[in-house]
């Protein structure tokens, strides 16, 4: 098997005929204002490359955690498999997937999903395990079925831990999605790579990554505050 390095397909942006600051690869406010438009599409691609893998990863990891919750012998094997996926270097992962899923979003998303699994799975399991035994005993004693107990008692009490996992997974994915261009997935990483020596470009594209990570974090945190107000009641 031979792989075509996808980097070869990328082209460096042409900046001839611009002002001195731009030619000198400097930080040029005028250029940023004039060229900001071109970052909007990659930004939204980056949002897509972050939110989609986290959402898919959450559904998979959450389902796995619920299955393993009452079958504790499954926790070890699932953690091993997702843990192994987590250790594969992302560039290698993109190359490995390319013959199967081709160049483009799919390859990037499949790889990114795999990276979220371990974090979310482990946090859901940890959260469910931390539910106080006395609350579970009372729930059973009052006649809740196992399913009712899961949805009405265990999951609500595990929610802070679960959302903490989603936050870590999201922030991680924003960073990893910056490499998605290697799989042909676009995003802000592609902008960075097209002109890596031009300070204005690096600051805008990199800065938008940071802004995105912070923004998504705030959104999840706000959701958490609304759904777990009981946690602050003790104070």
């Amino acid at each position, binding site marked *: 098997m031979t792989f075509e390095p996808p980097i070869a397909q990328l082209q460096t942006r042409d900046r001839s005929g611009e002002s001195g600051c731009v030619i000198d690869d400097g930080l040029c406010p005028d250029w940023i204002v004039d060229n900001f438009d071109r970052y909007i599409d990659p930004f939204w691609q980056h949002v897509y490359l972050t939110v989609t893998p986290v959402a898919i990863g959450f559904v998979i990891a959450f389902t796995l955690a619920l299955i393993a919750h009452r079958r504790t012998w499954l926790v070890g094997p699932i953690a091993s498999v997702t843990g192994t996926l987590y250790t594969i270097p992302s560039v290698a992962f993109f190359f490995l997937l390319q013959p199967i899923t081709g160049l483009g979003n799919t390859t990037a998303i499949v790889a990114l999903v795999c990276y979220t699994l371990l974090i979310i799975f482990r946090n859901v399991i940890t959260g469910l395990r931390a539910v*106080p*035994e*006395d*609350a*579970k*005993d*009372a*729930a*059973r*004693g*009052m*006649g*809740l*079925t196992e399913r*009712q107990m899961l949805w009405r*008692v265990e999951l*609500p*009490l595990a*929610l802070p831990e679960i959302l903490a996992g989603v936050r870590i997974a999201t922030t991680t994915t924003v960073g990893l999605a910056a490499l998605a261009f290697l799989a042909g997935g676009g995003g802000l990483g592609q902008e960075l790579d097209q002109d890596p020596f031009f300070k204005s470009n690096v600051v805008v594209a990199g800065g938008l990554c940071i802004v995105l990570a912070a923004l998504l974090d705030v959104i999840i945190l706000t959701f958490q505050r609304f759904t*777990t107000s*009981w946690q602050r*009641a*003790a104070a």
Partner: protein
Amino acid sequence: MTDHSSAPSPNGKGDRQAATLEFRHATKRYPGQDSPAVDKLSLEVPAGEICVLVGPSGCGKTTAMRMVNRMIDITDGDILLDGQSVRDRNPAELRREIGYAIQQIGLFPHLSVADNIATVPKLLGWDKKRIAARVDELLELVSLDPHETRDRYPAQLSGGQRQRVGVARALAVDPPLMLMDEPFGAIDPINRERLQNEFLRLQRDIRKTVVFVTHDIDEAIKIGDKIAILQKGGKLAQYASPGELLMYPNGEFVEEFVGADRSLKRLALQRVRDIDLWTAAQVRVGESVSEARGKIADSDLDYALLVDDQGRPEGWLSESAFHGERVERKLRSPADPCVELDDILRDALADLLTSDTRYGPVVDDHGKVAGVLSLEVISNFLSDAPTETRTSVDLIEEEA
């Protein structure tokens, strides 16, 4: 005790009657263990009575209780609720009909007090209005202010308040049977006593059949209509009313478990009016001395008690009061301690022990002298077999 199965539920709303409970050779054996955790336990709890399961740790009392709502499955024998075997019931449905309160309370930290109490009503599909009304009713029943407590989270309550919410939650659908596993075990002694009294008052109104687990014999004596003492290996040592148990322990184990002070414990189950008091010479100022001396001769004491026009005690007269023709107001000591007919005998004894005289006048509801209580009177009572045995619930009932 009389049969309370026909007693109405609180406010006459729930109309759920108390259930009878019968353990019939109920046995629990765990695989790999030589001796059973509960061994052929047979006892009947009449409707509306509190049955306390008490014994040292490892005697199977909690296991026996948890077999009732099938939190633990029966290996052999049976448990009948209103004559129907619990083994034939769907566990979840059975549990919704049985109140469940445990020492750790197990309130759900993510739900408000109201939502905690509403757990079983919601499972049974009650409508919102009915649930809200029931929550307020229950909070009042357990002496909590609905407006203040309803929307709080468990973390915002004190230990005693949490315990009350736990009891309210267990009572939510007015179950005919309550299981309580050391419900006051984690509470400090002062609040525990208060909660026990409150619970007995509550029980006077709701008349549930209750299975109450504790390791504390004093709590068992205070709470129980009937006490089942279990010993290691889950064997029933004795099943009797508190008074019977204190008077007639049926063996060394029970005797030891009940304690060497069991005669003193009987004092907690009696009131001053229950025992034969000494008569007192009641003398008024201005009475003729000869008449007064005659009263002293007829009484059980060598001293006369000065009383006012309403017959209320003023003090013990000194010898010098009888020097003239008429009785004069000369006191040798005040009328201390003064106990009431309704006082618990144990409390009255404590009053006597802290005074110098070792005896004191007893007054009725109107403050009139009804007799004299002395240490001798109490010790006579203790050496006699009881004519009747009563329970704390009876005592509280009389008070009302």
